[in-house]
């Protein structure tokens, strides 16, 4: 490219008043795209991050979510002594029989309610999920309190730290009502940015009694190695007596990205629609640039510069505009990275907590969008510049 890039760069900055609006337009398109997609990425990462690779989850065949699954007590009794299941030091099988119940609680903003997922876990449940850790929490007066695990039978629960921020009566020491019973919060836990961050945990047998559940919802089992996992899964699924489905825990959660999909679609739609407006703005700017530099273009042609050089030069100028806009857009979106929020998840129909996650890949996608807009917007004006007849261009004012 004989024409140096500095020519384009300087022109962009010299005409900053005209170009600012277009740069901002592109920046906004990129920012909106990155933000909406980072919602989806946050949701996906949250579910991908859930589970221990050594665990196998058992649910009823045909159930799309743990909460709508049932595993009977007989099935539990039969399965928990399978040889592939690992055992703890005392020789007990590392199995947790979970009960999942959805309850409706008022949000902290006082204006709305939301569904919250309560998981009743067996005493081994904590060991099976090492990513869940107790953390210090706040009581209703705002002072720091040490968390402790719930004691079965005492109507005690532990809640996710992130959920505590969103719901009334989730401070340590608070009580809340559900199903005609009063439950007390004795600790906060951190789920390590996984699906467990959206849950309330209590003892499984207590949950069954409280919510009148005859059966469990799912079983979580620890296996010794991947071969044992495969054998266990095959054994469970091949047995005709049990309408059960087994898979590695991580796989189960990875597949739960249905909530993210409509958000991704929304992000693509918005970005595309806004891009069209931005393309028009870019076209306007570049046409004005070409119009103002007609004599310059004629001079360059006289000096021997070819048409395609001029075409390329203006497209590059449009791309430069777009790149500046893209970088600005990413910077605009960046502060939201890590911001915690929640929405109703489509799998569990309960409040799912997650964070905006802006990944380098997203930023790159945003930049590509921007460059496409810049190139698309400057293509026609660049063609016009290239096609200007030399003499007429020289004569223009």
């Amino acid at each position, binding site marked *: 490219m004989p024409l140096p890039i500095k020519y384009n760069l300087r022109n962009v900055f010299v005409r900053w008043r005209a170009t600012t609006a277009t740069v901002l337009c592109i920046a906004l398109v990129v920012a909106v795209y990155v933000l909406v997609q980072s919602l989806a990425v946050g949701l996906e990462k949250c579910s991908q991050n859930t589970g221990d690779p050594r665990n196998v989850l058992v649910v009823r065949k045909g159930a799309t979510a743990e909460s709508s699954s049932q595993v009977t007590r007989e099935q539990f009794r039969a399965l928990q002594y399978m040889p592939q299941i690992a055992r703890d030091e005392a020789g007990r099988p590392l199995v947790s029989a979970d009960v999942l119940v*959805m309850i409706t609680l008022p949000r902290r903003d006082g204006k709305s309610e939301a*569904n919250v997922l309560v998981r009743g876990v067996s005493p081994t449940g904590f060991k099976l999920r090492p990513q869940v850790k107790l953390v210090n929490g706040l009581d209703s007066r705002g002072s720091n309190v040490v968390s402790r695990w719930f004691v079965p039978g005492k109507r005690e629960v532990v809640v996710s730290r992130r959920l505590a921020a969103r719901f009334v009566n989730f401070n340590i020491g608070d009580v809340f009502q559900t199903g005609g019973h009063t439950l007390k919060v004795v600790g906060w836990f951190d789920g390590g940015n996984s699906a467990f961050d959206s849950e309330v945990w209590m003892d499984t047998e207590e949950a069954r009694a409280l919510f009148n559940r005859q059966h469990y919802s799912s079983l979580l089992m620890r296996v010794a190695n991947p071969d044992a996992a495969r054998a266990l899964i095959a054994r469970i699924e091949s047995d005709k007596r049990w309408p059960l489905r087994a898979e590695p825990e991580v796989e189960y959660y990875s597949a739960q990205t249905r909530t993210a999909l409509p958000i991704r679609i929304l992000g693509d739609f918005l970005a595309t629609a806004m891009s069209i407006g931005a393309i*028009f703005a870019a076209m306007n700017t570049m046409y004005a640039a070409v119009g103002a530099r007609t004599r310059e273009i004629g001079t360059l042609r006289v000096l021997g510069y070819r048409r395609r050089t001029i075409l390329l030069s203006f497209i590059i100028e449009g791309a430069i505009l777009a790149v500046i806009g893209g970088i600005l857009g990413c910077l605009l979106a960046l502060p939201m990275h890590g911001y915690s929020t929640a929405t*109703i998840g489509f799998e569990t129909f309960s409040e799912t907590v997650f964070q905006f996650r802006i990944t380098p890949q997203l930023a790159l996608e945003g930049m590509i969008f921007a460059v496409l807009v810049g190139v698309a917007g400057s293509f026609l004006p660049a063609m016009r510049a290239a096609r200007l007849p030399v003499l007429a261009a020289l004569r223009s004012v």
Partner: protein
Amino acid sequence: MTAASFIIKNAFRNKRRAVLTVLGVSVSVFLLVTLLVALREVTIPPEDVGASLRVVVRNKISLGNLLPARQRTIIERIPGVVAVSPFTWFGGKFKNEEGMTFAQFAVDPAKIRVLFAEAKMSDAEYKAFEADRTACIIGKLTAEKYGLKIGDRLMLESTVFPLTLEFKVAGIYEGTTDDRNMLFHHQYLEEAMGGFGLVGMWWVRVRLPEDMPRVVDAINRAFANTSAEVRAETERAFQLNIVSMWANIKILVGSICSVVAFTLLLVTASTMSMTIRERFRELAILKALGYRRHDLFAFILAESFGLAMAGAALGIGAAWVAYMECNAMQVLTGGVFVSFEVTPRIIATAASVAAVLGIVAAIAPGIAVARASVAEGLRTLD
């Protein structure tokens, strides 16, 4: 030549720029209207004629918990109650689709006609539905989507019950706010589950609107302190509660709307500035000829406003045609939105946003022109 024709001639002097501006504005307005309608659809469920006479009763713990069937007789005895039907969510997957695209409920067929008096279906279809235990009725939208006709059989695999059931289409209804649902016999479900004696919700029809508060209260009190406490509320309140769970979505869509509006401003403002800068010389000449500052400002304002409103008209018009005439949104999202109505209020909002932006966009260039002296303007050779 009048002032108006002068302005119009000026606006279209650079045809390409004017067209691009109008198009840019119209795309943004179209998007704005789409977002506003979507927001409205999601936050305010459609008002139903019969809704004012229906009460929804659910387990107090949450919607996901079931209620004992014996509660029915107690509710029926409350004065003011005309009909009670169970409403149990089946959550069935149709064919091999990943998710559920239409809701299925197990109900009492005899009571449905009373409960949803506004639904339109022939007598024969009602009778056929009641007669056959495996029969079901389907809303018109779903029937059209899958090409189902009376007499067709369909298999549904439930995700909440360990069942796969086969149904026979006995009728197709329309006229309700949600013509997508499939209703079948609760008895059929009961038998398949081996008599489990549970229901998902109770839907109750009240005789008169005045009876509503009293009935709601009575139902709530009837089951207080039992093992299955309930929450009864009007159908409208129920729908609004569901929608309030989407709280953050409202904020998200709201902020996107503002961003889009701001982008609109940028597009219009930048074009006006470009135009004015090009015309500095002429405007200076007009000044020299005796036109006063506010005349010039009026010219600029009129042009900016005109372009903005032209774009708004185009954008709103396109949205109207797409959503009201062609039902674009319903088709594109496969029925996620039952209705996608462009209300007069939304049209007015979008139009006023564009108008304000057209005015605001003219301010900066207008001030610049007003301030520049004639000599400066004539010297300009941008």
